């Protein structure tokens, strides 16, 4: 039972970490995207 807690906890922790990082990057992109004109966005 202790094994299951560690294993599932490990997966949950990993996914929460990467989801949080992804959300932060996307949020920063949207926030800054409003301030930068489209012609300066080389990816568009």
């Amino acid at each position, binding site marked *: 039972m202790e094994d299951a807690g*560690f*294993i599932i906890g*490990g997966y949950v*922790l990993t996914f929460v970490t990467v989801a949080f990082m992804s959300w932060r*990057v996307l949020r920063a992109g949207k926030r800054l995207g409003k*301030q930068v*004109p489209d012609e*300066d966005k*080389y990816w568009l």
Partner: protein
Amino acid sequence: MTTTDPTLAQTDPADDGPASGIGTGTRGTRIIGIATIVAMGWLVAFGLGFSPEDRDQRESVRLLYVHVPTIWIAYLAFIVTAVASGMYFFGRKKALGWDRLAGASAEIGTVFVAVTLVIGAMWGRLTWGVFWQWDARLTTTALLFVTYIGYLAVRRLGGTHEQRARRSAVIGMLAVLEIPLVHWSVRLWRSLHQEATVLGTDADVSMDGLMLFSLFVGVVAFSLLYLWLVLHRTRVMAMEDLLDERGLDDALAARRAEAGGTQAGGTQAGVAQEGTA
């Protein structure tokens, strides 16, 4: 990574053209993002469900489908940082895009090393009975993590973007030399950590087929995640740099206008004094 002062970043986008409000996403990143989510779903299915338990490690082997891919992708991320740093440092054009790629890749690699260390500690608790040992592999990995925290800290020091790029490029090219040390630490010193099962020198992969496939799914999932993150983060950094430059330009223009106004005001006051006399 350069921080953007919100007060300086409030430039009027209408001055230079319309901003659509679109962030850093494109069709390509959306496809990679969806593929990442699907691959992560497969990782959960195979890592926690379909793959068998190990004869010695029992169920704890399931943690390795996250632990191993995250450190491999962290190695890759740090190699990308070193190569991009070299491209900036030795390149003729000194393109800041290389510096931003180096910084973005190092950030993601550092997070992946943190995940590796935490998951490894959980695996160690189940397998060795302790969360941490001052073992060669664990210690060198912790050192790698601290080194890249330092690299990211150096990126946040003041100065121009070029100064940031030069400083961090040197560290980025030196820090990557730790990777061989981490990887071969289990052979160089008598380590508690097991030796490489897949990336060993004998090229003999003695793993169950489903276990190997689960590991492969993990590598694909975290590779896609890395690619998706590095694309978005590099674009965010490009916008941060642009707004930093604009903010500095605006501040300088405001300062010049203020200095000009003071000078004109001073001259007028001088004329008025002369007139009174």
